[in-house]
């Protein structure tokens, strides 16, 4: 199902992930979050931006541990854990946050 952002149409796959990562604009995350009845705060954006930077360097989403460690370093140790991330992204940081960030879905036994 394609999504509409500022009058522009973006193709997505059957699970709602952006078809082409290069198409991404911040509005994509806002619109996807709105569909999940979620308002994106600065905390959400910190994660989304980290995911995009990491993907650009490594061509894959970061491992959960890499993500929690980076969050812990940046925002304080109490936030460097999965619980904090699940608090922000209840469908799972790996999948929900990746989708907002325009990244492909992690596949495999995860």
């Amino acid at each position: 199902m394609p999504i509409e952002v500022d009058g522009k149409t973006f193709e997505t796959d059957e699970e709602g992930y952006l078809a082409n990562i290069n198409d991404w604009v911040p509005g994509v995350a806002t619109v996807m979050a709105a569909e999940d009845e979620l308002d994106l705060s600065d905390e959400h954006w910190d994660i989304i931006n980290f995911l995009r930077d990491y993907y650009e360097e490594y061509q894959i989403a970061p491992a959960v541990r890499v993500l929690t460690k980076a969050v812990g370093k940046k925002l304080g140790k109490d936030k460097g854990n999965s619980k904090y991330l699940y608090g922000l992204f209840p469908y799972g940081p790996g999948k929900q946050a990746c989708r907002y960030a325009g990244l492909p879905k992690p596949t495999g036994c995860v």
Partner: protein
Amino acid sequence: MAKADFEIPELKEYPEIPPVQPGATAGLKSFVAKPEMQDALGFPGELVDGWQEKAIEHMGELLGKYRSLQVFLDSCVKCGACTDKCHYYLGTSDPKNMPVARQDLLRKVYRRYFTFAGKYFPKLVGATDLNKEVLDDWYSYFHQCSQCRRCSVFCPYGIDTAEISMAAREIMDRIGLGQKYCNEIIGKVYKIGNNLGLPGPALEDTLEGLEEDVFDETGVEVKYPLDKKGADVLLVTPSADFFAEPHVDGLIGYGKVFHEAGIDWTLSTTASEAANFGMFIGSYENMRKISMRIREAALELGVKRIIFGECGHAWRVAYSFLNTLAGPWDFLDKNYPMPQHILEFTWGEIQKGTLNIDKSLNDDMVVTFHDSCNVARASRMGDEPGGQFTIPRNVIKAVCNNFVDMDPDTTHEKTFCCGGGGGLLTDDLMEIRVKGAKPRMEALRNVIEEHGVTNMAAICAICKAQFTKVLPYYGLGMDMIVSVHQLVSNAVILTGQQTEEDESKEDDAA
């Protein structure tokens, strides 16, 4: 946890056999593979013209190749012993999830085209033409089987539904109707080297991070080497071990055990995946191609031994098929088993007394163990029958003071599948995954209530991922599920490791 748009089964104190609800999960269909995913595996991109004839032709080929398939299709006497043994039937009430009915979806077509009675008197023997309706049922219900083989334990003829479901998936793939989850993943193994699609630099970064973490925690430099030429041991582990929780805690544990045992080991980017989804789709060619990566890595690095990490079906492929798929392994050191399971290795080190273990470090847990189906029913560990059951439990008991087994009707060879095995671990099948987990959840809840169990340990990447996702649907914490080597990791005190006691002594001295 996502909101469920389906009814979550109610857990009962004793297992109940539900009354049938025909068609309850007929509409539950896994996403179909896209043409490019099919191409990568050598299958037609979409449903081919004349698919009926081609499907029958492929069925004939498989019957000629696998004698077992024909025996399984011929020998069912409809005794009913299997009907209440499948976790998907118990969780969904759909009668086509009874193993005999699942088999019959293929059997009725087999009879029509390959038996005398079925050719001439189809109605008398329940034989039917292969039409679109039958194909739809195949696609739904052969992707609602996790190939766990529990039903075959109870079948007086030993009919293996897994093998029938693998054959059905292979036929569907070859007429252009593949499943997205499995086929996309196999494509990633070919293109990048593992199910997740983790490229070399990402692996390196992740492993460096683990070395830092273990050092920060223990003050000991434990290495997690990648592509180290001339290492003695190649560790082949599921790529989820690099990526997900609690998988990665197991990987940390393997590294600590190797470190203490003084083993020179390495991981490999070429063989950065133990899983072999070629088995799930019943494709010998793909299974072989995936296995060959392990051979390639072993030769490239010049290792002497190969050890497999915690992955259920990988151990089946390794233990039962690797020799014919990718052997002979005559270039490896013959003094060691090939393949060897990480639990066999760790148990050996525990018996030798190499590891300094403080069991009390796991005293905050009461642990139970989930036998993974492919380890339990399709392989073995160690030198004695039943080693696949005793060795994991021995290791857990060596590192934990509190261990409790679940109901014996749900463990050992009668273990229930986690609900996500066999290529079903995908979000588009969440309903079947949650419902299929019901029998395991019931047994788990009973030991929680009776014995205060706090954690369930597993030795399979699929089980770990599946439970992390489905436990919350049943009101249980996702972090209840732990890796067996995570328990080992918690309890092992590394040589030279700073313990809390040392630290407090230092503080006193200061």
